């Protein structure tokens, strides 16, 4: 119930929401969990496996139970954590994993079958006929919320930032650290996951520097950048951290969570601690809550979760809860597991007393209290049982960042080994405010690496400092004592796993699923491994903890993807005349990272018909192709010729200015990496044309060799791909169009033969015209600065209209080049293809210098006679186009052996039959042979021929 006064909620701002259809109210400042508690809602969820009723247990990221379905406007979170979501007006909240509702769940009867569902039950009980027979129904019974069918279309934002000191945690220690680091002159980023800074100060009623602690907070963070409602969920290398900022209540209105990538020179871990539950029979009943959470609900939200309360504890921290409950008017008893108990006014304290059993329908009605061995018990009525099993420092991020942990027997906790790192507050096992403040101040100065004369904040020392009595469960046979609430793992499950040989904590985790739920075992981890230690006769220190990995709390994958989704996942580059292609009806596809026209389909035309039309037109009239994506790397310097000669397989130093040569670039393994035309522009200047998708790679390769192997050579490289647009005019009528273009260049066969180029002007526009062909027809590649691309494209289409010019796309070009046997790197070649396999042996014999990859071409493997070699294949059935990847096989009795495979195949419009290229073992020695092809169980036949099906003499290049 809500108290009339108190809490940090805004009682002037009432909010309406629904819970499972019932209209309820809360206030601005509430979380969904605090509003549900204020309205007396006991059961908020059904457990994952047994469908047991569960209530709110905690008040922070450690909450294991209160996962709910939330709809608000058009937002839907099927697995919202009720303790972390700020209540909004109009929210529609519902329980998950319960039908028809979590309060009345038909599957609740499953709990009666629990003895058939022990740890690892899916390996044991459901094995006949097989697990897969049962799995779908079991999966449907288990689980959390139901994901909506809608695909995530929201745009999540990512930001990067850096700072001198990152302080993780906005409790007293973190604020003291940020304050000190700032005073020492550091740029400080303080990240805290709550709506309001202060951490435990929000419910401790503490005093700092002789005034209210929260007043101190307001002044302490002056000059500090603060990210509130933001969770550091991952610590990564070299001081980088991932932060998720919740912006549901941003001042500008609702917004998607935002991912921050923070790079910090130093960081202070002030991540706090998480209260552990006590492990005792039926400790999962609604109405059993973390003692500290009860205090937080009382002081932060003005909610009294029960009027008749038992506080069960093994340490001093829960006494503050008991006293606060008493002051709020509740009837309070303390059951302290320790033998001695202090006198607290108005509260009965039972020493050496623990909960032995709990009962009640739909909530809590009574608790049996007595000594640990259960030798005596007294039934005490109660509607709330606040428990504290001690504290586990929140070492998750510290450990992720590489920090070592050590078990401390006195504090019964894993503590961070602070050597070389900055940690402060309860994460170090310090429970006393004065100590936390002092540690924070010290850590802030240390992280800043500079001194400051700022005085450390001070607070009164804590009154209660008796040591904890570790208590990891009760030895009461036949009882069910819960360790992991969210995944329904009991102490018995842990002991069963241990007895079945799962002695490693990592194995225990995977076998029992302890700590594998969405809360990642924040409340269960230490209790579970302590029970494992007991069951296996080991020390807790020897058992250790499971590895802490990101994320600390669940993160939407869409937030990690950010804007790198959909079309922006791997953005395609656009050609300078992209819009012209689209206007012409081009089908744009991804070719090597560029959006390029596949073909230009007319209305009602099929892709195959368009390819045939475009290819035929280029063969017999004239076609226009956009080659702008082809790489252009300028190489300049007095050693340009000598350097490129060391890089390329082919001789390039003897190339005359104005001449072009088709060249291969190899890896040091001898494997063909790229092919392309090398043009010599001048004695000291070359222009390379790598494949569209290899331009960056070729440039990096040239830089690597220049910088590491030949650093004294005078040569420089520049990628000018985007600076120039290139259009190929190809076909028997190409020359007349280029002549009509004007520009005054001598286009005669003597002045500009095949594999030559000239530089000229088209009016005031510089222009390069190169005679180079990938179709086998006479071709002119015309390049102008990209800004003039549209004008040139339009002009070529206009000038060519009378000649029947048609644009052709990549798919049509692919047919034209296949007819000519021109290879495509990566299609016809692979990671084993050497130049000799392509029939290009000349340079290896002629070129004396030690070019890249040369030595590898001289090894026994490179000179084997039975290497796969490029050949042409004519399928026996000219109507059938074999699928690339089809194997050529040698049939040997019942078996068959692969001789290689088809790399390219198409229907040739000019030959009116299917043709193919392939890499076939000893292919050149098999000319004229007919071989078997095999694909998906089907045999066919093909004849091996030279890899050129059309105009083998190359007369049309000059025609």
């Amino acid at each position, binding site marked *: 119930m809500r108290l009339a006064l108190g809490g940090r909620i805004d009682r002037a701002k009432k909010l309406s929401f629904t819970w499972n259809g019932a209209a309820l109210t809360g206030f601005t400042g509430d979380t969904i969990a605090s509003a549900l508690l204020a309205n007396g809602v006991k059961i908020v969820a059904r457990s994952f496996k047994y469908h047991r009723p569960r209530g709110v247990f905690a008040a922070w990221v450690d909450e294991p139970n209160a996962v709910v379905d939330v709809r608000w406007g058009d937002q839907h979170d099927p697995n919202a954590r009720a303790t972390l979501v700020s209540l909004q007006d109009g929210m529609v909240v519902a329980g998950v994993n319960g039908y028809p509702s979590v309060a009345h769940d038909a599957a609740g009867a499953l709990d009666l079958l629990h003895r058939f569902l022990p740890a690892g039950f899916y390996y044991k009980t459901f094995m006949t006929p097989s697990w897969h027979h049962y799995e779908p129904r079991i999966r449907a019974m288990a689980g959390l919320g139901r994901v909506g069918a809608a695909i995530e279309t929201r745009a999540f934002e990512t930001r990067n930032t850096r700072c001198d000191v990152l302080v993780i945690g906005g409790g007293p220690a973190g604020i003291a650290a940020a304050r000190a680091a700032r005073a020492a002159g550091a740029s400080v980023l303080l990240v805290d996951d709550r709506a309001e800074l202060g951490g435990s100060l929000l419910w401790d009623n503490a005093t700092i520097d002789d005034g209210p602690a929260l007043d101190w907070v307001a002044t302490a963070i002056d000059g500090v950048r603060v990210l509130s409602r933001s969770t550091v969920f991952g610590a*990564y290398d070299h001081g*980088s951290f991932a932060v998720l900022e919740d912006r549901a209540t941003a001042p500008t209105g609702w917004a998607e969570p935002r991912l921050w*990538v923070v*790079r910090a020179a130093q960081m202070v871990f002030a991540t706090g601690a998480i209260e552990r539950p006590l492990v005792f029979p039926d400790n999962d009943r609604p109405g059993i809550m973390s003692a500290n959470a009860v205090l937080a609900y009382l002081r932060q939200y003005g909610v009294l979760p029960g009027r008749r309360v038992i506080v069960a504890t093994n340490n001093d921290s829960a006494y503050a809860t008991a006293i606060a409950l008493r002051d709020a008017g509740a009837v309070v008893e303390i059951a302290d597991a320790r033998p001695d108990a202090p006198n607290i006014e108005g509260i009965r304290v039972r020493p050496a007393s623990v909960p032995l059993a709990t009962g009640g329908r739909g909530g809590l009605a009574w608790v049996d209290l007595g000594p640990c061995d259960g030798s005596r018990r007294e039934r005490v009525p109660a509607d709330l049982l606040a428990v504290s099993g001690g504290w586990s420092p929140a070492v998750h991020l510290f450990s992720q960042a590489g920090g070592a942990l050590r078990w401390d027997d006195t504090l019964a906790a894993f503590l961070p080994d602070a050597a070389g790192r900055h940690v402060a507050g309860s994460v170090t096992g310090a429970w006393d405010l004065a100590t936390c403040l002092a540690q924070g101040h010290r850590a802030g100065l240390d992280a800043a690496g500079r001194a400051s004369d700022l005085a450390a904040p001070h607070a009164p020392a804590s009154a209660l400092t008796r040591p904890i009595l570790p208590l990891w469960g009760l030895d009461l046979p036949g009882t069910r004592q819960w360790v992991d609430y969210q995944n329904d793992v009991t102490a018995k499950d842990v002991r069963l796993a241990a007895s079945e040989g799962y002695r490693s904590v990592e194995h225990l985790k995977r076998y029992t699923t302890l700590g594998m739920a969405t809360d990642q075992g924040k409340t269960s981890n230490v209790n579970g491994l302590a029970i494992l230690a007991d069951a296996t006769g080991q020390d807790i220190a020897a058992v250790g903890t499971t590895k802490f990995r990101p994320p600390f709390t669940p993160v939407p994958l869409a937030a990690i993807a950010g804007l790198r989704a959909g079309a922006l996942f791997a953005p395609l580059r656009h050609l300078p005349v992209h819009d012209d292609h689209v206007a012409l009806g081009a089908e744009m596809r991804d070719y090597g990272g560029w959006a390029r026209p596949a073909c230009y389909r007319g209305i009602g035309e099929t892709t195959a018909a368009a390819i045939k039309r475009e290819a035929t037109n280029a063969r017999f009239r004239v076609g226009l192709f956009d080659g702008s994506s082809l790489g252009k790397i300028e190489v300049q310097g007095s050693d340009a010729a000598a350097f490129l000669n060391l890089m390329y397989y082919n001789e390039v130093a003897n190339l005359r200015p104005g001449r072009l040569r088709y060249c291969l670039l190899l890896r*040091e*393994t001898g494997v063909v990496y790229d092919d392309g035309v090398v043009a010599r522009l001048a004695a000291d200047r070359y222009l390379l044309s790598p494949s569209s998708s290899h331009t960056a790679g070729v440039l990096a390769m040239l830089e*690597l060799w220049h910088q590491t192997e030949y650093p004294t050579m005078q040569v420089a490289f520049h990628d000018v791909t985007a600076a120039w647009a290139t259009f190929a005019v190809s076909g028997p009528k190409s020359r007349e169009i280029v002549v009509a273009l004007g520009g005054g260049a001598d286009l005669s066969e003597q002045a500009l033969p095949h594999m030559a180029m000239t530089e000229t002007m088209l009016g005031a526009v510089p222009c390069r015209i190169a005679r180079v062909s990938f179709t086998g027809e006479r071709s002119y590649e015309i390049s102008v600065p990209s800004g003039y691309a549209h004008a040139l494209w339009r002009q070529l289409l206009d000038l060519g209209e009378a000649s029947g010019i048609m644009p052709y796309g990549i798919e049509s070009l692919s047919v034209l080049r296949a007819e000519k046997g021109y290879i495509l790197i990566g299609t016809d070649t692979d990671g084993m293809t050497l130049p000799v396999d392509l029939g290009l042996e000349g340079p290896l014999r002629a070129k004396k210098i*030690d070019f890249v990859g040369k030595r590898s071409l*001289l*090894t026994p493997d490179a000179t084997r006679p039975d290497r796969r070699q490029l050949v042409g294949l004519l399928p026996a059935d000219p109507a059938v186009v074999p699928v690339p990847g089809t194997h050529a096989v040698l049939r040997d009795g019942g078996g068959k052996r692969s001789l290689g495979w088809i790399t390219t195949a198409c229907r040739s419009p000019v030959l009116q039959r299917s043709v193919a290229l392939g890499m076939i073992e000893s292919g050149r020695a098999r000319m004229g042979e007919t071989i078997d092809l095999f694909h998906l169980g089907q045999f066919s036949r093909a004849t091996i021929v030279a890899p050129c099906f059309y105009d083998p003499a190359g007369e049309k290049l000059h025609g």
Partner: protein
Amino acid sequence: MLALPCPHCGTRDEAEFQFGGEPAIRPPSAVTDTVWADYVYMRSNEKGPHRELWCHAGGCGQWFVLTRDTATHAVLP
């Protein structure tokens, strides 16, 4: 994400760099096939301090060698 020291530009995020693997000294072509194959194919794959090539591809384009502990990612002097 690593923070790597470019000799020209200073420390930058890993995203700006291209990894070049373990540097190998190119032997003269007169060596045996075995020596050549070692150079082309064999890498030490160290756990611990490891010399490796990086290129500040998203920046100045400089290739450089740095020593990194492959177990801790610490960049070593």
